[in-house]
């Protein structure tokens, strides 16, 4: 079970770690001060979440969080390409934030029932914090989605560009069946279904 568990934790942590850094690139460059602060805060949350997960990995025998975060080579990261993509314009960053955090909130919702207790406990904590990320994403998506012709077409363009990449968030682990049968995680397929349902709303 240990390899399957580690693989899952690496994947979740690396996604957050990389996107956290992308978010932090908005610090000082946001389209308005409040968005600057929002993306910086979300960066801090995400890197904090990844740190808690890397700390959990250390307890499973991996190296210490700083070593894991900063000294691996690119091919040792388990994140999806979606979170790596350069920030581009604000509309793309916002759409990615919306798609990713909607999935992330559902993922931690599922992990509340994880048979691995430390993960279930952390999920309970992170879930509350992610509410603010999804509130933020929904608010701004609504604002721009009902704004000018330009804002609407920009969002649509970013959405069309993002969706194929977003599917990478749900890439099954090589240990997928083990994760599911051991009750560690309900599985990427189930998560993707819930996510798709949520987006339709």
């Amino acid at each position, binding site marked *: 079970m240990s390899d399957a568990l580690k693989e899952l934790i690496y994947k979740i942590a690396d996604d957050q770690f990389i996107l956290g850094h992308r978010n932090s690139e908005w610090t000082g460059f946001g389209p308005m001060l409040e968005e600057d602060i*929002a993306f910086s805060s979300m960066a801090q949350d995400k890197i904090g979440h990844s740190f808690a997960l890397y700390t959990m990995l250390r307890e499973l025998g991996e190296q210490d969080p700083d070593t894991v975060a900063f000294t691996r080579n690119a091919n040792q990261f388990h994140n999806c390409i979606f979170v790596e993509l350069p920030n581009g314009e604000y509309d793309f960053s916002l759409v990615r934030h919306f798609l990713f955090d909607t999935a992330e909130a559902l993922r931690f919702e599922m992990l509340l029932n994880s048979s691995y207790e430390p993960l279930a406990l952390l999920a309970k904590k992170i879930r*509350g914090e992610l509410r603010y990320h999804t509130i933020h994403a929904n608010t701004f998506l609504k604002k721009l989605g009902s704004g000018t012709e330009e804002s609407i077409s920009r969002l649509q363009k970013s959405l069309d560009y993002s969706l194929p990449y977003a599917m990478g968030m749900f890439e099954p682990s090589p240990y997928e069946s083990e994760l599911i049968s051991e009750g560690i995680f309900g599985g990427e397929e189930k998560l993707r279904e819930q996510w798709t349902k949520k987006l339709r709303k």
Partner: protein
Amino acid sequence: MNTITSDTVKEWLEEVKDPEIPVLSLIDLGVITQIEIERDVVKIEMTPTFVGCPAMDFMKAEVIESIEKRGRKAEVEINFRDSWSSDKISEKGKIALKKFGLAPPPDSAKVFADLEILENAKCPRCDGTDTELRNPFGPTLCRSIHYCNSCQEAFEQFKPV
């Protein structure tokens, strides 16, 4: 050495404040989740307000210092066994927050059942609720930014989580 109880340690820790909100002790903030005494060792469990809280190591060091200067050994563990929610802030803590000019967090379960509560946070200056949520993210992870239409001024709220 005198025998001490967990209440003694609680009294000691009153002096350790949240570095971002100096009127609030860690006890009132609710981040000290367990205190146990074993011979001359004080074992403490703490939990962060926000997982990414940058002040955690600092607070841990202050807790250790507060105990060691009284001649006891301290062991502090940070974990999520009894994870923090804004509902853990004591009544005394909420009053201190308001005096400090920060709106205290409303009951978190109520907020997430009805997000409108976030839209109409109670202004710490005039107690009015004719207010708007400006940004769920404020100057620190635990604060959101609101605007009071009566006072025509912005204020911050300690976020319900």
